[in-house]
């Protein structure tokens, strides 16, 4: 039997790796990749809580499905934004997209 903590630690680690990607990658697409990792780690959490909690109560899986939907929406809009920015400013480096600075 696998202890619940293993899943949670795996999820935390995956989250941190994703966070590192988000904070450190230069490419905007790569940042979105990091966000996907973070969302997936959340899903691992949700599903393991479902499995280790009351199985008859489907909230964990339902939430995971809603996370899927949110992830799909986020990726489609995010990538559309990246492509739009690339078309206008010819770059996808996040640091170079700084029009909103003072």
């Amino acid at each position, binding site marked *: 039997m*696998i202890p619940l903590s293993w899943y949670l630690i795996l999820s935390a680690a995956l989250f941190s790796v994703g966070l590192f990607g988000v*904070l450190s990658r230069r*490419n905007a697409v790569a940042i979105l990749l990091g966000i996907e990792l973070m969302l997936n780690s959340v899903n691992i959490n949700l599903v393991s809580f479902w*499995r*280790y909690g009351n199985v008859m109560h489907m909230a964990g899986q339902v939430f995971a499905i809603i996370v899927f939907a949110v992830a799909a*929406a986020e990726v489609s809009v995010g990538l*559309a934004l990246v492509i*739009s920015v690339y078309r206008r400013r010819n770059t996808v480096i996040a640091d170079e997209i700084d029009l909103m600075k003072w």
Partner: protein
Amino acid sequence: MTGEQITFLVIALATLGSALMVVTTRNLIHAALWLIATLFSVAVIFALLSASFLAVVQVVVYIGAIAILFIFAVMLTRKDMRDQSPQLNKNWWVGALLAVLTFGGLYTLLQGWSGLSRTVADIPSGFDAVAELGTELTSFTGYVLPFEVASVLLVAALVGAVYVAFNPRSGDIRK
């Protein structure tokens, strides 16, 4: 250590390893392919957790759609794909530190949590998780509202994505 645990450790290792490759590899296409590997491992973890529906949906949605979309996006912004300049920004060590701190914080919080020693819940015989999930998602006492809201969100994202990514030079969107 049982076979199940060994399986889990192998999968977890694969997940984390490929995730690390996602955030560090230089070639973005490879990063996307590594992401697919990660997502696939997560699907296996779902299967280990007896969430078969989610495992398959993970493959369909993430690998079948999202990852492919990433590869498309990378290819469409191709100039930077071949850009051999460093893929990490100059503050990457701050990011690394913060990530480690986050992990540490989460780990500490988990240690202090009383529910950590919980055991696997028994799945009653004849319990059909897929059917149950479907019922929950569509019943008024369940989650029909969040489900519908999520679908509205998806439609909005679809429209928004089409509008945002539309190339104004290639034609008039209002035509």
